[in-house]
């Protein structure tokens, strides 16, 4: 791995291993993500990107190794302590994972109501504010099945932002979207970076998206981050796997 920017380390994975049966997905994986940066993890389909992200969100536990989030070993926590740490980490799922029985506004309000963090009036204000931030205020009374894939992802971002997390994890935010909608989601990530200054981890195999939003890009291959660098440096890394991956992407886009 190349040198990473200094400052506070919000996410640190140390020698993480994970297998599903005989399939070894993560192998002695190490990575660091620093406060306020947008770290993009590139990798082929099936390389374990989503599995890695679920480890960072505490949804999966490694077979061995350690994952520190905001200075705490997430796998050593349980019960209320774990729920409290998870409130500081937001995750936007591939499908959006909106609650289908609730409206858009209710989806965004759910966590605030459940944790009784504010008065009902304040919750309404926060919901409007977050939906405006992702330009979805007009859809507040619709249910998820009435909105498009891109809109679902926007609402999922608003729902995540409602708890004002310190870290936000994006799982394939542009997957399954048309190019225009994909750039729309990229703009949203950039906008959030500008306005909210969150630490973000974006998992994707969309090169255009990766080079647009990243402060640093890491390449996940055979269960390890084989290189991590700012976008310009990343392009110049002389590694066959990386060059093949970038080359394929460029050819495809042309």
């Amino acid at each position: 791995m190349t040198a990473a920017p200094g400052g506070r380390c919000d996410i640190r994975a140390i020698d993480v291993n994970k297998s599903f049966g005989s399939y070894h997905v993560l192998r002695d994986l190490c990575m660091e993500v620093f406060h306020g940066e947008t770290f993009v993890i590139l990798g082929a389909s099936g390389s374990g990107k989503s599995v890695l992200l679920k480890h960072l969100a505490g949804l999966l536990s490694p077979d061995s190794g350690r994952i520190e989030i905001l200075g705490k070993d997430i796998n050593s926590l349980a019960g209320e302590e774990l729920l409290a740490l998870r409130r500081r980490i937001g995750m936007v799922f591939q499908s959006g994972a909106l609650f289908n029985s609730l409206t858009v506004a209710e989806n965004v309000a759910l966590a605030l109501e459940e944790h009784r963090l504010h008065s009902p009036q304040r919750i309404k204000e926060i919901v409007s504010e977050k939906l405006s931030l992702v330009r979805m205020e007009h859809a507040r009374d619709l249910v998820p099945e009435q909105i498009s894939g891109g809109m679902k992802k926007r609402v999922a971002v608003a729902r995540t932002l409602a708890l004002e997390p310190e870290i936000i994890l994006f799982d394939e935010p542009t997957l399954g979207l048309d190019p225009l909608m994909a750039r729309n989601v990229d703009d949203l990530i950039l906008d959030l970076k500008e306005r909210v200054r969150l630490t973000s981890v974006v998992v994707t195999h969309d090169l255009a998206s990766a080079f647009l939003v990243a402060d640093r890009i890491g390449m996940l291959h055979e269960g390890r981050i084989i290189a991590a660098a700012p976008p310009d440096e990343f392009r110049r890394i002389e590694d066959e796997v990386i060059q093949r991956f970038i080359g394929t992407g460029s050819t495809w886009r042309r």
Partner: protein
Amino acid sequence: MNNVLAALGRYVLYVCQETGDTLVLLVQCLKDSRHALEHPRRILAQVKRAGNDTLLIASGIGLFIGMVVSLQVGNVLRVARIEGVLSKAVAHSIVRELGPVITALLLAGRVGASIAAEIGTMQVNEEIDALHTLGISPTRFLAMPRFLACVIALPLLSVYASLVGIAGGAVIANIHFATGWQAYFDAVWQTLDFFEIRMNLTKSILFGGIVAIVACQRGFRARGGAEGVGRAITSAVVTSFICIVICDFFVTRLML
């Protein structure tokens, strides 16, 4: 032979794991019940759903079960020329056994299946993972309200279905065996003491808990898209049926 033993071993391990998971979920639901009053509407909505889904069918089944019991028992008693105790026999069998067991099976088929489908779909759509990342406990948010709702709704349904069953028995007792309405109901009220009601309520509270916990556990364990959800529903209903019948035997044995 080795393959058979290996398959048997795997099955035993599977049953142990599922039982362990279900008991852990039960303990978690009982612990989380202290938060029940924070969102009473959530529990009320589930009680309403359980009631709406089963009340009409419980009425029909209760009525016909009462009539069948009255007909079968009445014919046996007629041979011994003791039709006078028919009302007591009907009340005993319905209040102690058939009322709670039949309504529990009904609840498992209607409400248990729908709980497993709902939670299973949320599981395969990553909605349960989303709850975790929002710092919301799926047990407290989804399982506990459904558990309490079934524990509250089933005793009400069971008492109601038992009363309907006794009324159904009365119709047959009068038409076929000419016991007389007044004599039938006088004997029923004499029979229904605290012990009878306690057995009915104890069983239905336990069965309600079984239906909800098994359905939630199967829903949370659903994997593999629509097919996985289908398997979770079938498993929830079949497992509930088996657990209800086994539990019925042990409760009856302990209380008699």
